């Protein structure tokens, strides 16, 4: 287990270094000179002297590796620059909004698991029966349904017409329901199908036959022997879905005016607030990488083949 952990951590270094280089390079995609952009954002007419002065002040005339080194050093100290729009440190802006995004993502994960696990298992147990076909249709619809459209339709039905849930914003549990369902539904459909095929594979294994041959109760065979092994690969998928949900949260936050990082990033894009956009990309990559690392570790702990590696 220790070796596994070490290997996994060592592998992170080059990846994170690459991520930082890409994030740093993003600013070059923006049309125009960064100094000019900053001046314009501050409402100052970018005269040649002003631009030149700011370039010197920001060190933009220095070679690119020096600038990258300085940027990386600052980023490692959680200094991602200041937002053009609010003037506050980018890191602070992101950290203050992240709990909202995390709340939404975790709730969506909950929706996903609640829908997908029973659907996937039942579809596998009743293969080719009505339930299985229903789950296939739901999965196809779920994979084809634009999340932004589902959200709007849910708002129309449950908020505008029926008045059950609030239209937008963050608050109590009833604020959370529609955004979480919007975000979680599409993934649930995919996840249910993956669970189904995992379950089917396990059900075909020798040890299941052996358990049945021993005359164990079917419920015990499924619950104790099949499910545990079918859920193991699902743990890795759990990490993947976390990434999908983080990506999807941008649109859901925008629809429901959810005050998270994604909505902030979209607002920043339309205000050409480049430091925030950069900071957002870096932050999301770090969150995703850390989440995947935790999932891998959980997998290592759950799978005795990895947990006990090197002990024998």
């Amino acid at each position, binding site marked *: 287990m220790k070796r596994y952990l070490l290997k996994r951590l060592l592998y992170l270094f080059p990846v994170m270094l690459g991520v930082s280089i890409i994030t740093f390079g993003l600013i070059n*995609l923006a049309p125009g000179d960064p100094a000019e952009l900053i001046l314009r954002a501050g409402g100052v007419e970018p005269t040649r002297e002003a631009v030149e002065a700011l370039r010197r002040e920001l060190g933009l005339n220095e070679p690119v590796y020096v600038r990258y080194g300085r940027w990386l050093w600052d980023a490692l100290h959680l200094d991602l620059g200041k937002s053009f729009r609010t003037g506050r440190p980018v890191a602070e802006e992101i950290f203050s909004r992240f709990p909202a995004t995390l709340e939404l993502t975790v709730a969506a994960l909950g929706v996903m698991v609640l829908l997908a696990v029973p659907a996937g298992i039942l579809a596998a147990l009743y293969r080719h029966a009505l339930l299985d076909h229903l789950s296939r249709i739901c999965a196809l619809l779920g994979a084809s349904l634009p999340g932004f459209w589902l959200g709007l339709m849910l708002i129309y039905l449950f908020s505008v017409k029926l008045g059950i849930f609030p239209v937008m914003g963050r608050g109590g549990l009833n604020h959370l329901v529609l955004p979480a369902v919007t975000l979680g539904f599409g993934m649930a459909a995919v996840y249910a199908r993956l669970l189904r095929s995992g379950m089917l594979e396990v059900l075909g294994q020798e040890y299941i036959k052996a358990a049945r041959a021993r005359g164990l109760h079917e419920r015990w065979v499924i619950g104790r022997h099949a499910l545990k092994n079918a859920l193991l690969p699902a743990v890795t998928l759990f990490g993947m879905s976390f990434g999908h949900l983080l990506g999807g949260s941008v649109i859901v936050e925008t629809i429901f005016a959810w005050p998270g990082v994604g909505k902030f990033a979209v607002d920043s894009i339309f205000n050409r607030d480049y430091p925030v956009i950069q900071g957002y990309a870096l932050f999301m990559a770090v969150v995703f990488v850390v989440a995947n690392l935790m999932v891998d570790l959980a997998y290592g702990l759950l799978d005795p083949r990895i947990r006990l590696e090197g002990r024998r």
Partner: protein
Amino acid sequence: MPAGAPARVVAEPPKEFVEEGLMRSAVRRLVGDKLALLGLIIVALVVLVGILAPYLMPHDPLKVALDQRLSPPSRAYPLGTDHLGRCLLSRLIYGTRVSLTTAALALVTIMLISIPVGTVAGYLGGRVDNLLMRLVDILLAFPDLILALVIAGMLGPGLLNVMLAVASVWWVGYARVIRGMVLSVKEKEFVLAARACGTSEFGIVLRHILPNVLSPVIVLATLDMGKLILAISGLSFLGLGAQPPTPEWGAMLNDGRPYLQVAPQLMVYPGLAIMIVVLAFNLLGDGLRDALDPREILKG
């Protein structure tokens, strides 16, 4: 295999292989799959609508008629009009063309990046492969489409920028798959034979490896059209893609948002259009995957 060829295969191949060949059997099985056939028909219809758009539209999709704004469905305007009095049906029909073209262009761009990268990585192996695959790992460290969002945001709004942004992150998955296929093809005997005949490395890649890799990749790519349409319309919905007055489905949804209460049809139809097209591509894709999966073929 010609009829008189020496039997080198130990197991008897299934009859349908011998009788009709791999491709034809796949087509037969695809047509046999009712859902996939439905997908194929819808996709064909949608493509036709896109091509014939100018002849099918009852009105000019860009023509503003403020006295007709937000009017309900009528004989003149079968689906009603939007907030500027433009014909919703005409905009939907023209939007088919915009959405399909953008996704297809993105797909071509993705191929143009991923085929060379995947082939070079797989064929050369060693350090080049290592370097390219690390780049792939790095791009995969960003959660789903967030990098595309950020790139599109940096480039500024516009359909072309969104297409480029999506392509610049989407190629990664393909490059991986192509690399894997090249790795397995380059060990095949016909590649060894070509090398023994003195064919140049470039010739081997061009004439022996690529032809064997391209067709499954193109099939794979077609399957992805649905996902691409979803991604691009999602970014357009955020306001990053098509700019007014271009009728693109995601952008139309975004335009209709303020009128959710008074004119829900502005949201319903573009969303339905996206869903039907994506569903059709997914149905077709599922069917194609089953039809081309050798394990399924052997099962009969």
